[in-house]
């Protein structure tokens, strides 16, 4: 007996996400946070208060005033486990450091429905821009996820 698939969100709802802006805000990477994060990667702590670049995943999300959970919900994910990663594109204009506040602004830049090999998914791209205390670009990241809808 197969489990019925959840209802498919209207494609218009998905496409309407393009241009959605998050509230934006600030984020400061704490020393303890960077220490634990760096340890998770298998690296020794970096010198001179350098934040491990892997911070460019959660810092923009939380700093923009959103969360992974809200990003799942915006795309009407069938479940947390239904999300797949297409790509991460991380650009560093400056070295990120601990205890420096970063301004983050974010929006959804792409959202559409796709079908590949009989598998349906919604493809959503989120772009986050980080600026330093002087207002200069520090980093940019684009997260592209697939909201898998199964075979229909």
């Amino acid at each position, binding site marked *: 007996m197969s489990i019925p698939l959840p209802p498919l969100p209207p494609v218009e709802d998905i496409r309407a996400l393009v241009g959605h802006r998050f509230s934006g805000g600030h984020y400061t990477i704490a020393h303890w946070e960077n220490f634990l994060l760096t340890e998770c990667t298998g690296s020794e702590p970096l010198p001179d208060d350098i934040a491990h670049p892997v911070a460019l995943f*959660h810092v923009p999300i939380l700093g923009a005033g959103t969360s992974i959970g809200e990003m799942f919900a915006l795309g009407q994910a069938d479940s947390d*486990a239904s999300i797949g990663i297409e790509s991460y594109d991380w650009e560093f204009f400056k070295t990120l450091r601990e205890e420096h506040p970063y301004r983050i602004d974010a929006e959804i830049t792409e959202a559409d429905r796709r079908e590949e090999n009989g598998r349906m998914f919604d493809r959503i791209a989120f772009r986050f821009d980080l600026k330093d205390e002087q207002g200069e670009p520090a980093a940019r990241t684009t997260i592209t996820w697939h909201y898998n809808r199964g075979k229909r």
Partner: protein
Amino acid sequence: MKGETMKGEMMNVQVGDEIPAWNMPSVLPERMRTMAAILRDPNPVHWDRRVCAKIGFGDHTINQGPLGLSYMVNMLHAWTGPESIRRIKMRFPQAVLDGDHVIARGKVTALREENGERLADCDIWLQREDSEPPLQGSATVKLPG
């Protein structure tokens, strides 16, 4: 002296050069749990093996994408220093699981100058025995000197 030697080696980087590999002998589930807490990541595939079993991953949790990417970062840091990365673009064709032995690898594809910096463009990937690379992408790093 070690630094001077490294700088000398970096002056001679050529297209086609392999980046020294970075080894992760075993992807640890404890690190995924710490990562999930820091990321406020509610996805149970990173910390609940029962959920992973239901979706076909057996008795293994799934590594966070950024953690797999961080192994590439560590490889590049070991090669060109902790302030060298200018861009990383990564795709994730397969999941990395707890217990996996993975090796970050890379190769120089182009050398160029931009804004007074010597840059190396590289193909980078995560190698896992008996599988296609679970992560594949590209990176741009600033070369010393």
